[in-house]
């Protein structure tokens, strides 16, 4: 349970770094700064959390991997749909036809969510822990 939550916080952050390009709006600038700072903190705190779980032998790497993939995929999908398309905060590339990039981006996100969910479901059914 805790390992799951841990990864929701921690691994997601590696993806938050896709967040910035030279946004021109003030809102973009402020949200970039906040995400950037919180991203750093979540990485640091997540690693400490992970270490605490390990030292208590309460860490299940399978749940960790599942949570990480699910969180990263969910964020990528959110980034690819809401932020890229609905809010138009930023794009993957500029001055080219963006459609193949967008499609690939969101398909990869969906695959990550599927694999992450799969791993978590298997972990939940029991079986040997990989700790």
């Amino acid at each position, binding site marked *: 349970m*805790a390992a799951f939550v841990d990864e929701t916080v921690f691994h997601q952050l590696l993806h938050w770094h896709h967040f910035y390009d030279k946004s021109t709006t003030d809102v973009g*600038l*402020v949200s*970039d*700064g*906040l995400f*950037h*700072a*919180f991203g*750093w*903190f979540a990485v*640091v*705190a997540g690693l*400490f*959390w992970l*270490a*605490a*779980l390990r030292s*208590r032998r*309460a860490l299940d790497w399978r749940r960790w991997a599942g949570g990480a993939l699910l969180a990263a995929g969910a964020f990528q999908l959110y980034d690819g749909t809401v932020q890229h398309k609905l809010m138009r905060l930023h794009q993957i590339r500029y001055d080219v036809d963006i459609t193949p990039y967008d499609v690939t981006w969101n398909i990869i996100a969906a695959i990550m969510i599927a694999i992450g969910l799969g791993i978590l479901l298997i972990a939940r059914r029991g079986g040997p822990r990989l700790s």
Partner: protein
Amino acid sequence: MITVRLPLAAAGLVAGAIGAYGPLAQAADHDFSAHAVVHLLLGMAAPLLLCLAAPVTFLLRTLPRPVARRLGRLLTLAPMRVLTEPVVAAALNVGGLWLLYTSGLFAAMHSNSALHALVHLHMIMAGYLFTVSIISADPLPHRRPYPYRAAVLVAAVAAHDILAKVIYAHPPVGSDPTQVKSGAMIMYYGGDALSVIVMIILCARWSRDARRIPLSGLGQARTS
């Protein structure tokens, strides 16, 4: 502990001295990149090293009893409580920077040496207060809960990074725009590096204090 703290204190003083005197400080008058390095040394590196050296603990232990007791009482006074409040310290620290770079203060500072010294003094003192309010090794009149300190730290780092980008986009009056771009990047990435060190120390203390508390109680650990 004194064996670790003495070199820390020395390093902090050296960092401050390099920022305030000598070739780097002179270059900072006309080169914005050097100015950004000075700003990181005075506002972040020196305060962090000095804060870890726990100077107040050192004074309390080495001063004659009556003087130490008076110092101890001084630290519990209302102004000290207010100044070591994380939100106040963060506002003094990052707010001061916003004021410096988005007003005419930056240009004025370079034509008035007294103002220049005052700005530097503010930078190092506000930097020290802020670092102390987040990760003090010294006794504080009151110590805030970890989640609160973490939130203020994240907000302050964000405000610092946003300011670096604002400077990049809108160079302060009286500075060379191309120099400002590299200086703003030094401020952004250098600031991040030092902030991550503060985050690591904060999280290390947090997890140390939480060790004997059940995992679900991580957020409730109050002491340091």
